[in-house]
């Protein structure tokens, strides 16, 4: 399937670009434009971004702060809307969905990992991992328990399952967050600077873990980072600068 789209170049001119979507495509973005209002100023965040991600890829989005990495991930994660362009996730035109359908899509197809872990402090590790499964009607209570146990085992946190997040180190918390993202068996995991709050050693461990899960579970990973030490470890890099994909 060929999708004709346009892209805005560095000179703010529209370029014709052809994004080819195949059966292996999990994400197809076409000409995404997004800007934010900062007081009286309109700040462009994405300027005609087109991108295709294939199933099973392990991709890093790199770029300086404010380059549009997080905005790009937000678009793919269906938690923000572009002013123009199209987003297709697993063959579904996301922008045609209502809020409930997008929530369902996020719940069943996308896993999120955040920079600051975002674990619920009053829930145990196991309960945090179980959270997205509670609202998934296709998962029975017994299957829920199995999936939580499996996800925690995959990230090496089984022994902490009854602990509260406050009792864990930063690296351990991020592992739990990864387990939560994986518990729903998503096709795509999005991680917004997952190592930004971790030291170097833990950062490498988290990337190793994500690589391992990518290989074993065949889950597509897309994460943003500006940590250059991690860049050599990914199969694909998307370089974004001033809201435009450079390479």
């Amino acid at each position, binding site marked *: 399937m060929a999708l004709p789209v346009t892209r805005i170049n560095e000179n703010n001119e529209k370029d014709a670009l052809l994004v080819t979507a195949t059966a292996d495509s999990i994400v197809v973005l076409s000409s995404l434009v997004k800007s934010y209002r900062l007081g009286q100023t309109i700040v462009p965040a994405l300027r005609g971004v087109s991108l295709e991600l294939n199933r099973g890829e392990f991709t890093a989005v790199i770029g300086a702060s404010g380059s549009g990495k997080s905005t790009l991930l937000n678009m793919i994660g269906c938690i923000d809307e572009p002013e123009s362009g199209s987003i297709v996730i697993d063959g579904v035109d996301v922008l045609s969905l209502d809020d409930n359908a997008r*929530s369902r899509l996020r719940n069943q197809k996308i896993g999120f990992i955040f920079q600051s872990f975002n674990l619920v402090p*009053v829930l145990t590790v196991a309960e945090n991992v179980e959270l997205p499964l509670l*609202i998934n009607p296709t998962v029975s209570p017994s299957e829920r328990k199995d999936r939580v146990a499996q996800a925690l085992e995959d990230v090496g946190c089984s022994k902490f399952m009854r602990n509260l997040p406050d009792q864990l180190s930063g690296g351990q918390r991020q592992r739990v967050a990864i387990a939560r993202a994986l518990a729903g068996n998503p096709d795509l995991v999005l991680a917004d600077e997952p190592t930004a709050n971790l030291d170097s050693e833990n950062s490498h461990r988290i990337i190793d873990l994500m690589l391992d899960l990518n290989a074993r579970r065949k889950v597509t990973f897309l994460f943003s980072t500006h940590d250059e030490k991690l860049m050599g470890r990914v199969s694909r890099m998307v370089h974004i600068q001033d809201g435009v994909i450079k390479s």
Partner: protein
Amino acid sequence: MNFQLFKMGARNLSRNVRRNIATGSALGLGFAGLLAILGFQNQVEHSLRAYTVYGNRTGHLVVYKHDGLDMFETRPFEFGLDTHDLSALRRITATMNSVEFEGEQLIGPGLVSNGCQSLPFYAMGIDPQLDWKVQQHPYNLKWNAGLTSLDKGRELWEYPSDSPAISLSSGLAGFLKKENPRDLGEDTGSSDPIDCQAPDASMKLAADPVVQLASYSWNGLMTGGDAQVTGIFHTANAYYDSSAVRMPISQLRKLYGTDGAAYYSVWLNDPSKVDSALAEMKSRVKANGLNVDVYAWNDAALSPQYTGMSGFLMTLVTFIASIIAVVVVLSVSNSASMTIIERSKEIGMMRSLGFTRRWIRILFLIEVACVAAVSLVSGGVFGSGLIWLLNRAGFPLDLPMVLSGLTVKMSVSPAIVMNCAGSIFVLAIGSALFSVWRVAKTNVATLLTGSNH
């Protein structure tokens, strides 16, 4: 709904204990306050109702000759019920299933004398057996207990219905120095005229229970007769306490030279069905061609004292309840807003995990419902204790034109508890929902940055 989400909502309460305690206290105290004020209203409302319907012998329905309510006192012959009216009314009420008991009453003015001094009176004549049914009615005994029995002496219904017994209000008895009622048949002493200037005149007047009554008959002729004071009672109203007189209707009819009555009262089995009984009564009197007016007991024209006090009380209660509602709404919405601001990132995280707006609202409502439930239980216990203490303390309640002796009392029924708890709960949930509605609609990416406020 998933139990785990309830568990999470309940556990979230531990995240800001002080704030939740403050919110819960506002809810609990609001609940206790509502219970107290509505308990007070309930007590006063029932007391007023019992006093009007039973204590005042008004009945649930009252039938006057057409325009008799306004005109009877000045022109009783024209605006009183005659024997034809009374017979027809007895026939009508005899076939109404809603009627518990009924009967005519006669009222009117006159002069009562102790031989030395004459004072105006206003008499009520009622069949003593009917009076017994009215005064001993369980509703009257429950809510009007202080006015159901005589201060001294014997009740009229303890004597034959045509006996010359009379009960005086305490003020009138005091003025006439007839404060020692005697049983009929007891020796009343010498019947010689009393020398009103003699030093022992007061003692002799007190020892003699007989009084002389004088009035005009319905035909305008001077009439008179003797009666024996057999009881002393007090009224709720200071104005009537120096003039009220009760006697068997047969005696008052003799005084006024009539077989008629001022009005015909009907007491119902089920007071909640006054409207339907009123409609039925109106329909039947019309069908019988009677030229009468039928009133419900709570008609402002018939019972202005009841409607006035009840209306004032309702205004007062509504005002206080409104203040409580505002406090509850502000407390909950303020607390919910602060919690939402603090947890916007978490809300964003949950939205990104797939929680819909509805789920986010439900989660916050679970938290508020938990706070409200605990607060209502605590407030209920506190309120019950407070009401018990206030009832026992017996704080005096001084109302204009109402005789002293009343105390502040509160009577809380299960319906009041349920209504108050339900109202507070709905207000709390509504306030929280109002606060969480906006945040649930906020863009998820904005929530995740924590900059939605």
